[in-house]
């Protein structure tokens, strides 16, 4: 039985403070940077959504990959720590996914004139979001031993991404091409990458908090089992 939660949590707790402060500072600074970034003439103010929209996908897919990889580790090694990492990451992936799915249509309304557009990137994100909501549903309603079932969902969901992307991409393509990101004018690229970094840090902060909660819960369960 592993009750070594205190030990494993310690290094995480040490770096949590600094990361939290940096993240907070970056989010405080972001509005100024975004406001001062060049005004994009065709899209107007709505273009600024881009600074939130794209970074939330970065964070979501990070969560998805962490969940998939740790899901596989849990499935084959049976280490409950890996399951805690995977489930925390999956939950936060769903959160950032929702953020992307809310900001996407705002962009779409201005750019394409409709709230929802079946464009490749948005379709892919929607499906991955659905798969990981399925992950959370399995954990909640799957009954005893649903950790293993959810691990399979994470692995299959991760492996599915290239196929969803490919099929949705050929099916429909309306999105500003992916190459827009590296070739941004540097006056826009600077704030954009700043926002990506801020979102990734936010992901890290939320992930650490979530994992800490999961670890505490496991420690509590272990104590409870011992006491009984």
């Amino acid at each position, binding site marked *: *039985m592993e009750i070594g939660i205190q030990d494993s949590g310690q290094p995480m707790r040490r770096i949590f403070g600094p990361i939290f402060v940096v993240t907070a500072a970056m989010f405080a600074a972001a509005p100024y940077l975004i406001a001062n970034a060049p005004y994009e003439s065709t899209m107007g103010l709505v273009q600024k959504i881009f600074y939130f929209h794209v970074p939330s996908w970065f964070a979501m897919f990070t969560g998805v990959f962490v969940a998939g990889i740790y899901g596989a580790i849990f499935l084959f090694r*049976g280490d409950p720590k890996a399951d805690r990492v995977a489930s925390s990451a999956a939950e936060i992936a769903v959160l950032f996914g929702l953020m992307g799915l809310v900001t996407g249509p705002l962009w779409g309304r201005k750019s394409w004139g409709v709230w929802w557009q079946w464009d490749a990137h948005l379709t892919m994100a929607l499906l991955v979001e659905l798969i990981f909501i399925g992950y959370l549903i399995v954990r909640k309603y799957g009954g*005893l*031993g649903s950790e293993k079932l959810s691990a399979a969902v994470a692995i299959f969901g991760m492996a599915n991404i290239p196929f969803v992307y490919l099929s949705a991409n050929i099916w429909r393509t309306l999105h500003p091409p992916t190459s827009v990101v590296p070739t941004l004018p540097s006056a826009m690229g600077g704030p954009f990458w700043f926002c990506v970094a801020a979102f990734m840090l936010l992901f890290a902060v939320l992930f650490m908090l979530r994992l800490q909660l999961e670890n505490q819960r496991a420690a509590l*369960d272990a104590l*409870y*089992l011992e006491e*009984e």
Partner: protein
Amino acid sequence: MIPDFDRVSLKGIARHYGRRRALSGITLTVHGGEIVGLLGPNGAGKSTLIGVLATLVAPSSGELRFGGLSPREAAVRGRIGLLAHELHLYGELTAHENLAFFAGLYGLDPGAAVGAALERAGLSERAHDEVASFSRGMRQRLALERALLHRPRLLLLDEPFTGLDDAAVGFVVDRLRRLAADGCIIVVATHDLDVADGLVTRVALIRGGRLVSDEPAGAGLRARYRSLVGHA
């Protein structure tokens, strides 16, 4: 080469689901020739323990060994026989088809193994009838022979006597005694004290996922069960 073993040992086996504990700190070694009665009230963890012994349920912690073999070796499964309250038979298939299918799974020559098993179950005449048309007793006899088709070293029975009449119980008890005499390791989970009383050579009482007593069978099983488990 089929692997073999002469004992099964559990060391500190625990299985929990979050906060729900199914098994905790089970340490037990069973040798060939023994018939261990796993007794306890409903929900005590008997079925989970049978599942762990069958390698179908992975313990959360602790060690399970089959003699010198690890449960991870797939070949070990070929030496385990399992019979539960649910009979592991396909109702749509005939007795013969059921046995032939499982013989195939175990890589046995169906011709010889199936005929002998039907004979022992006393079902030779109904070999080509669908199992769904059998009575509970007939099904149970067939299920037992199915579980024994590959001559397992370890035989696990989970509530095998439910719904059987006296004659059928007698048949099963008799068969188990002879198997034990041949060196088979037998574990029977049941809450039926009357049947267990005459059959088992050793009694393991389990309650709340813990092993509360482990001793040779003897007189006064009912009294001890009552004092350790509460009611009988």
